[in-house]
């Protein structure tokens, strides 16, 4: 396997990726989850939020390879979308107000028409009359694949900067 090659910031490809990332955030912030899933996500997606523990420095970052907060496929993501459309998804009806802030975007090319995108993610969320937001910060590691001329999300790993998650649910999409 050849090592990934970094895509320069001043390139058309990088600009296309930033536009992709911005469009995705816009759809998610607007609650257009079905449109996001159907137009931006690959049927083969692996979408994971690994569990993290506090461990000593010698043992690394504390992320688990085998246990998760979310471990989703296209089918299970579609299940979430259908649920939110059911009219009985109390956790997100009325919906949270959610804003995705995506920064520090780094793009590199992988084999097989794929791109690796690393970014920093900050999610700001409020519900009801809350004035203190729920904040979720982490690294987003995405893999995009060119499928019939369109980039589709085929891998997403969210590395949260938390061990105890300070939100009452994860009814949102990272």
């Amino acid at each position, binding site marked *: 396997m050849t090592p990934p090659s970094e895509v320069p910031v001043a390139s058309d490809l990088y600009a296309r990726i930033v536009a992709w990332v911005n469009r995705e955030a816009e759809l998610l912030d607007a609650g257009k989850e079905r449109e996001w899933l159907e137009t931006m996500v690959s049927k083969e997606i692996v979408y994971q939020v690994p569990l993290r523990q506090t461990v000593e420095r010698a043992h690394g970052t504390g992320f688990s390879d085998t246990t998760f907060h*979310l471990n989703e496929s296209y089918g299970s993501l579609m299940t979430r979308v259908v649920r939110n459309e059911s009219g009985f998804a109390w956790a997100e009806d009325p919906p949270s107000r959610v804003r995705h802030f995506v920064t520090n975007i780094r793009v590199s090319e992988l084999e097989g028409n794929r791109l690796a995108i690393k970014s920093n993610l900050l999610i700001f969320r409020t519900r009801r009359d809350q004035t203190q937001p729920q904040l979720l910060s982490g690294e987003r590691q995405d893999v995009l694949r060119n499928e019939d001329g369109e980039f589709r999300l085929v891998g997403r790993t969210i590395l949260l900067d938390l*061990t105890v998650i300070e939100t009452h649910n994860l009814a949102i999409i990272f």
Partner: protein
Amino acid sequence: MTGANSSNGKSHSVSERLLDELREGLPDGLIPAALFGNEEIFNLELRKIFARCWVFLAHESEIPNSGDYVRRKIGQDNFIVVRDEDGGVQALFDACRHRGVQICRADSGNTDIFRCPYHGWAYDTKGNLLGGPLWKNAFGTMSKEQNGLLKVAQLTSFHGLIFATLDPTAPSFEEYLGGMKWYLDLVFGLNRHGVEIIGAPQRFVVDANWKSGAENFSGDDYHLGTLHRSAWAIGAFPVPFADNMMGYHIQASPGHSLSFSMAPSEDDPGPKFFAYPQDVARSFDTSRISDEQLRIASRSRVFVGNVFPNFSILLAPMTDDGAHFPPTGVLTIRTWQPMGAGRIEAWNWFCAYRNMTPDQKDRVYRSGLASFSMGGVFEMDDTEPWMLASRTGRSVAAEVLDLKLNYQMGLPGVGIAKRAENWPGPGIVYWPRYEEGVQRNMFRFYCDMMRAEPGTWPKASF
């Protein structure tokens, strides 16, 4: 402390008044809303309940090897649960004997020494003090035996589930469980292999009162039809709401309650053995349980229960993707850690029978995560009303208007639930599940514990 005058003119605290109201209201199914938010009650609970009752710490499969440890909570305090050098399990209070500093620096790991970061006092995996830097100069021949880490008063392992209590006067764990043991055997002893934990526990914070989790898992089946209505819209759960209300509500012993979803007839085509895959179900036998327990498990669709105070168990058929995968039995255990009158830290573990294939364990884990976890389609809705109940619990209006919550379902003349005849297991049993005696049972024992003097215990049997 806020004072209030009782009718006899004797001054008495808010918590005493609320507990009086609880005791007087329980026979009529009336519970003061303030129990779910009052700070004075909460502070009393930490001492009267969490510092006395048997609480769940860990499963032995989380610490298989000598030196393996996990950091866990009793009430709000950290304990190191560690496999000692002789293969035993210790639960050590995470506080150095010198200045009280926490010596366990990680959520889990493996070590043969716990060293305090302040002055370097070091302890072995049994909590024995080994010494510190320049020990002879500093402390000479001072007794090390008298300066080991403090331990829980009693500890036990039950089907690999490690429980402990800080109270040396607490009854033995078996006596504390009473009739609940029969039902826990039925879940954790379904075959000779037993269960193991899959992965590390998920932890998340909910702005709610711990009793909302405990009473829900004591057998609140009636909320499914409304709160979890979306589960049917997506095919996550295979039994229709009204059918799922068929089954038994069981007050196993004071404080501990549970509920089975079960079809009226043994010939019903619905899920058997909680919808475990057939080859797994074939391994369920009477090596650790009786014929009667096995027969009940075979007819069961859902088991949900709570060991007082805050250890909850759910075994139910679930799927993450109903369009592609049929539901499978998912066993989850959890604790509702009391971090404040309106603050729970929920800990959530998934379990699998050891003889399941890696693929079957993966199905269990995925289905569990997608249903009963903070990102799961059931649980994400559960936390919403618990937050709102705790808001009412803190409310001035609820106090001034004297809001009593209604726990009357299943009282004589209320609904169709009746005492069940010919039930082979222990406890007070009702059929079908239109019934809140399971919650009243939890609150009755809660009330007794809150009023019990140190060293005395309410009755552990009916």
